[in-house]
């Protein structure tokens, strides 16, 4: 006979599906996030402060690039392990998860997969310890969902490349030591205009990374631009073996996978805070939790969260078996980020006036989810990715209106 229990935080016992090793990594990440990050989160958000020591702390525990092989400073873990780490960091503040996403998926991953052995040896161990911080430049001021139209250029010159252009909405760029930048390469040959990846170190002449100011969301995560004015990048800093958009998309696919897991933590935290609040607050002589309107809101939340948990787990399982396609990731990123945003908004509402203050934390998550639902492929763009896969007709480019 099985044991029949109802756990309102994990209704379908999804944590049991996670391997013992990955659960231990989850527990370690949870302990770190709750004891070390949670006390700093509200102030970090209010003061737009990312404590640089966090990078070293995370590096010391092996939370950066956990899936990268040990020989390059990672732990050689499963992708599900990466997922559960994201869930625990996001439970506190998506700004911290974003830091790990960028460092792991958008910087360490391309260097590991597309880099030379020298590049791997030179950068990966120091990125894994948090000694150096990376950022990733794809989006441009006029090219967000349509990165193929980027105008940043890399012109072949003696001994290297000359880069010009600007990237924006770049997580970590103001504090980064290393920028992975995607640009259209012009070498005068057959591959003119093909997208290639470049590694630009802080201190390169012509490089600047001004901060994006007045963000109302993800405030503890430093966001900026990467401005390149005749930046000379030596040949050894070009990623050798990748051409076209599949390079940057491979990175985004990994980062989106992290988001799929991360926002589960956000939704769970908002739901748990809302549940605690309505059980404890009495109005009209009865706890809020006894009201039908409140109970159906909680029911909707746990229904969505259960779907999010199981989607995240199954996607991790498929990714660990090397069977996950980009469309699967799009489906889960779209569903989970959208659901987390909605849950955060409803939780904010359930907390009434108290939900307006940062002390109760749900409005912090709610504002963050506006970013997460938008970045790494907007909710709608992932719908179009799925639409293309279902119909085999792309609908990104509007047709029929050109005269």
């Amino acid at each position, binding site marked *: 006979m099985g044991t029949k229990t109802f756990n309102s935080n994990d209704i379908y016992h999804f944590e049991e599906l996670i391997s*013992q*090793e990955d659960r*231990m990594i989850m527990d*370690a990440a949870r302990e770190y996030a709750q004891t070390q990050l949670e006390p700093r989160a509200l102030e970090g958000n209010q003061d737009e402060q990312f404590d640089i020591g966090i990078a070293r702390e995370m590096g010391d*525990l*092996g939370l950066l690039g956990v899936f990268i092989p*040990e020989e390059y400073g990672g*732990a050689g*873990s499963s992708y599900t392990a990466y997922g559960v780490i994201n869930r625990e960091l996001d439970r506190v503040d998506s700004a911290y998860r974003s830091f790990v996403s960028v460092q792991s998926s958008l910087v360490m991953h391309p260097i590991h997969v597309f880099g030379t052995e020298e590049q791997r040896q030179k950068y990966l161990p120091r990125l894994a310890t948090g000694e150096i911080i990376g950022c990733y430049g794809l989006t441009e001021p006029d090219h967000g969902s349509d990165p193929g139209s980027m105008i940043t250029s890399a012109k072949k010159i003696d001994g290297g490349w000359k880069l010009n252009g600007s990237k924006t909405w770049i997580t970590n760029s103001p504090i980064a030591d290393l920028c992975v930048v995607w640009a259209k390469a012009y070498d005068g040959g057959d591959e003119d205009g093909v997208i290639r990846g470049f590694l630009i170190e802080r201190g390169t002449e012509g490089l600047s990374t001004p901060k994006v100011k007045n963000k109302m969301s993800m405030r503890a995560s430093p966001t900026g631009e990467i401005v390149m004015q005749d930046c000379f990048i030596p040949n050894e800093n070009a990623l050798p073996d990748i051409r076209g958009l599949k390079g940057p998309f491979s990175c985004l696919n990994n980062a989106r996978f992290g988001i799929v897991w991360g926002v589960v933590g956000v939704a769970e935290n908002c739901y748990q805070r809302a549940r605690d609040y309505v059980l404890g607050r009495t109005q009209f002589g009865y706890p809020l939790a006894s009201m039908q309107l409140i109970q159906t809101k909680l029911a909707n939340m746990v229904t969505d969260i259960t779907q999010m948990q199981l989607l995240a787990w199954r996607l991790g399982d498929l990714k660990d078996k090397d069977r996950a396609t980009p469309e699967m990731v799009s489906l889960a990123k779209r569903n989970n980020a959208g659901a987390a945003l909605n849950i955060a908004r409803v939780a904010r509402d359930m907390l009434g006036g108290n939900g307006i203050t940062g002390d109760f934390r749900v409005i912090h998550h709610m504002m963050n989810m506006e970013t997460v639902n938008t970045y790494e492929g907007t909710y709608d763009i992932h719908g179009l990715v799925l639409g293309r896969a279902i119909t085999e007709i792309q609908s990104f480019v509007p047709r029929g209106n050109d005269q």
Partner: protein
Amino acid sequence: MNILVCLKQILDPEVPVRDFAIDGSGLQADPNCANQMTNIFCENALETALQLKDAHGGKITVLSFGPDSVKDSLRKGLAMKANEAFMVLNNTGHQPDSAATAKVLAKAIGKMEPFDLVLTGREAGDWGAGQTGGLLAEELGLPYSAFVDEIEPEGEDRLILRQQTDSGWNKISAPKPVVASITNSDHNLPRIPKTRDIILANRKPLTSWSLEEVGISEDELAAEQQKARIKLLSIPEGKSDCEFIEGDSLEDKIDNLAERIVAIARSV
């Protein structure tokens, strides 16, 4: 130095009051009402041992008596950098008391290589009896010190145990081998295991013995349990009330508050 650290797995003592439940027997907490975790004082003990090993070398073995789930605590111990892990499987479905636990642990220790130092937590976050360390020392016939928060070698054959007291601490010199129960302090906060060490810990062997294999039968264990039995557990009903103290001035309010406190204290 060869150090043994005993780890107890308990239900998360931080479980919210409204989620805590007693099982149908009325004799123990419902094991499904909270997550299982390693008792924090046992982790303080392991951290104390790890710091001793980091500074002076040696080997650390972790040992637990409990159901199959104690493997999680032992694996975490290995991930924190203990060298070896052993368990005695309790599949009786009952939670042993301190005396029974000490007896089983002593039997297991008898099967292992000799230790210079045996550590337990000060008490466990479930029952808070604080008896296992002392009873284990009695079973092993070894000296014992409680409330220890720091250990240093003293020459080859002795250890200095720093014991917390109400007003400060005692430094006790004890011959090896010795048993100590460890309390928490600022400097033995358990380390969080690193991801790489977690993965390595899952590749290390973990030895599991049955009760019979350590030389104690289920009947003997049951007999031990008969000495002190729990008759019934119940959750006290909490009542809270809120009263506003009035007064014309701050001084009046303070006086009225003081009078009210005295009145309540007298009525209790």
